[in-house]
């Protein structure tokens, strides 16, 4: 396997695993919990690092990070439930404190070890091909592929197996609870998987950029569709496209791979925001403009139907108080539709235009 392929495949696994869970985070309005968890896994990793005696072992790191993630969720919920602090402020209190503890521990005890903060923050997916997994004396290929592939599979299974429960508890938590679906258990399961994914992706895209992979593709998909299955599929697609394009861009510019992937994801979000067929900003504006123009043209037709002779443009402008440019637009549309004749003496209906105007009482 070429190293380019390994890197891109790892990134696609990261983005797919994230998009699967992120879709539910976005819909449940817990996007910022993803931010909090991804910061707070740091002390968990450090603790696991310390417990396992400075070995950069994967299993303890995963466990430690999952524990830290759950601690974050529990603390935020506890703080919110005391009623003394609002939910967003609770998030903003918990994760910097935990992250500070992590940073402090790293700079105190692991300064010279293989756990430097740059890697924590923005990861180094470029090393993915070189950390290989060896078992029973066999070289099984890059470790990151195994970890992220496994996590992608676990997340996929989770979403497929509990799709009904996830969907119901996302859109109607009360009904889900009434039907005995245990939304709280589902909530903690989802959060545990987010923590696991965050730490699994920690080597490749870093603790902070994982937020980009968890939130941006699902948010982009959210702008493009109103249906949940389509949204999840689109989120996975956007993640994969960002992974590939981001990698290409990073190679061209010699910049951080994860950073460029997040940039591309952000750009895709921007495109969806502007051009989405469902309520994109420019799409909506164009539709409004077109409707305005068509309405004006029909108004014009109705007006002309009362006159036998061609009406000079000046008269129409006075009558409706339009700008000449606007009249020209409406005229152009009506001419293209074959409703208005190009008469040099002024505006005149074609036979079709007259018929159309006459239909209306």
């Amino acid at each position, binding site marked *: 396997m070429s190293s380019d392929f390994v890197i891109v495949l790892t990134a696609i696994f990261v983005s797919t695993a994230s998009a699967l869970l992120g879709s539910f985070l*976005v819909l449940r*309005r*817990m*996007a*910022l919990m993803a*931010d909090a968890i991804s*910061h707070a896994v740091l002390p968990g990793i450090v603790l696991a690092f310390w417990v396992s005696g400075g070995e950069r072992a994967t299993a303890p790191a995963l466990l430690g990070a999952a524990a830290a993630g759950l601690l974050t969720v529990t603390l935020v919920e506890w*703080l919110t439930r*005391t009623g*003394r*602090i*609002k939910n*967003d*402020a609770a*998030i*903003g*209190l918990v*994760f*910097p*404190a935990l*992250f*500070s*503890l992590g*940073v*402090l521990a790293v*700079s*105190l005890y692991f*300064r010279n070890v293989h756990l430097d903060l*740059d890697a924590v*923050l*923005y990861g180094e997916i470029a090393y993915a091909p070189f950390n290989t997994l060896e078992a029973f004396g066999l070289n099984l290929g890059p470790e990151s592929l195994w970890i992220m592939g496994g996590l992608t599979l676990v997340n996929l299974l989770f979403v497929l197996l509990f799709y009904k429960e996830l969907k119901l508890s996302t859109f109607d938590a009360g009904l889900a609870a009434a039907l005995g679906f245990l939304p709280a258990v589902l909530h903690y399961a989802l959060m545990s998987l987010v923590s696991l994914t965050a730490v699994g992706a920690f080597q490749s895209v870093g603790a*902070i*950029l994982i*937020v*980009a992979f*968890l*939130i*941006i593709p*699902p*948010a982009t998909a*959210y*702008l493009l569709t109103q249906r949940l299955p389509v949204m999840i599929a689109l989120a996975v697609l956007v993640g994969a496209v960002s992974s590939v394009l981001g990698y290409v861009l*990073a190679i061209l*510019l*010699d*910049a*951080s791979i*994860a*950073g*460029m*992937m*997040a*940039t591309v*994801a*952000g750009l895709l*979000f921007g495109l969806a*925001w502007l051009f989405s067929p469902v*309520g994109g*900003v420019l799409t*909506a504006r164009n539709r409004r403009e077109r409707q305005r123009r068509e309405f004006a043209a029909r108004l014009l037709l109705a007006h002309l139907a009362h006159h036998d002779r061609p009406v000079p443009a000046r008269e129409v402008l006075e009558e409706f108080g339009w700008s000449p440019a606007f009249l020209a637009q409406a005229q152009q549309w009506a001419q293209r539709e074959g409703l208005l004749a190009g008469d040099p003496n002024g505006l005149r209906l074609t036979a079709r235009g007259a018929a159309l105007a006459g239909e209306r009482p």
Partner: protein
Amino acid sequence: MDLLAGIFTDYTLRNVALGAALLGLVGGVLGSFATLRRQSLLGDVLAHAALPGICLAFLLTGTKAPLILLLGAGLAGWLASLLMLAILRSTRLPEDSTLGVILSGFFGFGIGLLTFIQHSGDSDQAGLDKFIFGQAATVVGEDVLTMAVLGGVALLLVGLLYKEFKLLTFDPAFASSLGLPVRGLGTLLTSLTVIAVMIGLQTVGVVLMAAMLIAPAAAARQWTNRLSTMVWLSAAFGVLSGVLGAVISATRENLPTGPLVVLTASLITLFSLLLAPERGLVWDWRRTRNNRRRIRLERLLLDAHVLYNHAELTPESLAQRRRTAPARAKEELEELAARGWVTGRGERWELTEQGHAEAHRLEQAMRVLPKALNPRAEGGAGGAA
């Protein structure tokens, strides 16, 4: 004490402590408004969004002058907040997702730019990445001056527009009915928050900035219900965490200032949450425990009262009535005895004078409620009794 004296004698420590204190002051004041307006995480977004601004400012001008980099940071943060508002207004995307998209998208772009600059072999770039965690230890006098000027402007504006900001925070609808430019004032307040973030970047960095806007304000909120007191307290807590964090980090090598400042602020918040008068959770727990205990004893006394009046009060009879073990009933009677409500004479117990009075009072208290709620019963044709 040597350490605190170090603030006045040690040049580096003095600058670091001053920088952190300024951050605490400005962050505390503006954080109060931000948390009350439920915009606490805006600081986090602005800080992350500042990174590409810093990198672009460096790429375009090639200098590392703090003011220019901070201006770049401010512009990027400002752009991010405008973009965020535009997205919120034009889509149905939830607010937290919008924050997340802007935060991580800008930050990813910033990391991309940062590595691009680093790999392009520009030797001047060293230290640029320190904005991520802050570079408190390298803050020099000139930086402190820049921070002081920026912070001074922000605080001055808050002072001048205090009444307007207060109204905007608590009742924007009323403010707008008075003819105040609510949207403009909101944007101004957000822009001032950008200034607080710019000051924080050099001391605590991008990642930890959120805490410096939230923690002091959340702590101050526990001690008072008045905005003015809260702002002063929040500023004081901010300054305290800044100075303490700086001093503690000077005690040992390898103790980064930013995380220590944030942890100090978090501890102050935790302390306030638990122990502030009135709102403190510890008092709450104690009140709940005392109430539970009082209610349990009162029910016990009423049971004992009934038994004493209509049968006989022994541990066995009490146990039967309350469906507990006789040993437990005996303990309960002793609890009542400790209050002076019953006395024991062998197996037979009886209510004391005080116990009778208390039971009577409780019975009366229980009767008051239904009577007061039902006006017809108040006429009292003797039926209720």
